[in-house]
């Protein structure tokens, strides 16, 4: 019983702030406090009228798509190597790849900034992509590892035996079978990059990403309801993307009759 109360309190503590977002996004008042004043969609309307915000959204989308694609491509290579081959130093290399998962983001961000400045490279969208790829690859590898692991090693050999080349048997057999994992990895990497703040804050240069833009707006109290509205949309988008990613992964596993081997959720 005590444990149940604890669990409920824990969930409230975790999700209550997120539940507050939509409540105040629709509240007809500029001050974030109870009692509520009334219902309005004014803040959502204002969202459509800020050019700087639109620039930030576009910037974020470009960065998130690039990061997702690059991280997933790297993830495919790493997961295939990790599940198919035995080579010296494999454990160490895989450990290094997964390290950003536990490394404080602020450290990653500051070190990257120092290195880039030392090299005299200009900051911009591509430096953010660089940082985001670094933190997305561990997720991508974790998802794709489980996709590759459930594959029988003989499948590709069977295709080669039947006349296909190494590349065509990968394309015809392996790729369709790990496709749910690839889509899942793309969506999750996209979501991580879209929401990420610290690395983007340090490496973004003059064109802010959406989270960086949001943070800037918090200095103006009258804009807070607009930020709430934006936050509501972001949470909704994240939840939908993650749900789609998991749905695709599970459906793919069921269609080929594989045992569900986990994934992220």
């Amino acid at each position, binding site marked *: 019983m005590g444990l149940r109360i604890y669990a409920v309190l824990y969930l409230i503590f975790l999700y209550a702030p997120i539940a507050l977002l939509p409540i105040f996004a629709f509240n007809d008042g500029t001050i974030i406090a109870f009692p509520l004043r009334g219902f309005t969609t004014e803040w959502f309307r204002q969202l459509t009228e800020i050019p700087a915000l639109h620039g930030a959204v576009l910037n974020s989308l470009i960065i998130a798509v690039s990061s997702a694609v690059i991280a997933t491509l790297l993830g495919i290579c790493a997961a295939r190597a990790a599940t198919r081959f035995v080579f010296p130093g494999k454990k160490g290399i895989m450990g290094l790849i997964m390290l950003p998962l536990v490394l404080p983001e602020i450290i990653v961000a500051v070190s990257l900034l120092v290195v880039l400045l030392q090299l005299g490279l200009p900051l911009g969208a591509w430096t953010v992509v660089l940082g985001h790829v670094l933190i997305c690859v561990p997720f991508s590898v974790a998802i794709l590892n489980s996709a590759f692991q459930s594959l*029988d090693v*003989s*499948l590709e*050999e*069977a*295709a*080669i*035996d*039947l*006349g*296909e*080349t190494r590349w065509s048997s990968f394309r015809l*057999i392996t790729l*369709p*079978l790990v496709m749910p994992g690839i889509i899942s990895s793309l969506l999750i990497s996209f979501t991580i990059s879209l929401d990420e703040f610290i690395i983007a804050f340090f490496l973004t240069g003059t064109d802010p990403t959406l989270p960086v833009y949001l943070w800037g707006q918090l200095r103006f109290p009258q804009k807070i309801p607009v930020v709430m509205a934006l936050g509501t949309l972001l949470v909704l988008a994240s939840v939908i993307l993650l749900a789609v990613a998991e749905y695709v992964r599970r459906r793919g596993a069921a*269609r*080929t*009759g*594989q045992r569900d081997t986990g994934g992220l959720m």
Partner: protein
Amino acid sequence: MKDTTGIDRPIIALQGVEKYYGDYQALRGITADIGAGEFFSLLGPSGCGKTTLLRTIAGFEAPSAGRLSIDGRDMSRVPANRRPTNMVFQSYAIFPHLSVAENVGFGLRRSALSKEENSRRVGEALEMVGLGGYGSRAAHALSGGQRQRVALARALILKPKVLLLDEPLSALDRKLRETMQMELRKLQRQVGITFVLVTHDQEEALIMSDRIAVMFDGQIAQLDDPQTLYRRPVSRQVADFIGVMNFLPAQAEAQEGRQVAVTIPGLGRAEIDAEQVPGGLHPGQAASVGIRPETMSILFAGEETERRVAQATVEDLAYYGDMTYYTVRMRGVDAPLTISMKNLVGRPVLARGTETRVAWDARSLVLFA
């Protein structure tokens, strides 16, 4: 190595094939010819190199030394996808995202057949393995036996010169395995393609093969037809691996002509034919004789025989229904012997501790070092 190659034309020629993985030598100089249209088995315990040899023939492993030619063509520069061989994998490797028909027709992708020709050949191949009408099923929904048939049809549709089978029956339950053994044998005769089967099951190898290569430690210990392999194993190791063999200590000396005199403590002195001594073994070096359980028999009350007789006590028995396996101890012999008796009508099953007489025949003895 004794090699009674009764083959017309070799389809696979192996010459001194070796394979190293780092320092580990998986194949230690394999030389053998496999005949066209033959059902050939590679038999041995796990780790003996039989699968490595099969994968070398398929082209998935490159030999470290030696030559391999298939149908007279040297294979050293021919990759797996261009070899006239097809393989049935141990896991069957059925493509789970394709239908049964797409699986079976996979090898035809590159031959640019018309749609009708393609589906006609897929239908034929499925018919051949007894899966007619299964084409539209999802491959991952099949049972183990059905998957195995799909794998067979998929490998045979390209009409390979050699079909390679990597322990194809080991995942099936016993009843199904026995049915598939007979079916595979029948199929092989029907299509006339050379089958090379890897198995660790000696019974399976004996039932199915024209010839068997028994492998230990990366070498062929004996290559013979099943009867010769069973009746005249060339070493204790082979004899022990194929069926059940009783070993007794013995001394032997060559006589004039083709006779060899053997002295076996407990059984006495016997004369055997030189054919019962493995090639390369000097009778003087022989330290033991082998005798199969079914070549000896328990003499039940009142039975008489012209064979040699010895006294024994039943120490233990195992009743199999059709057979009874007796473990007996002969007077003056340290090791217990196994004797198998068919449970004929009216024949009793002896109890433990029964004193009995055992008949044996010098013609069934084999000498070992």
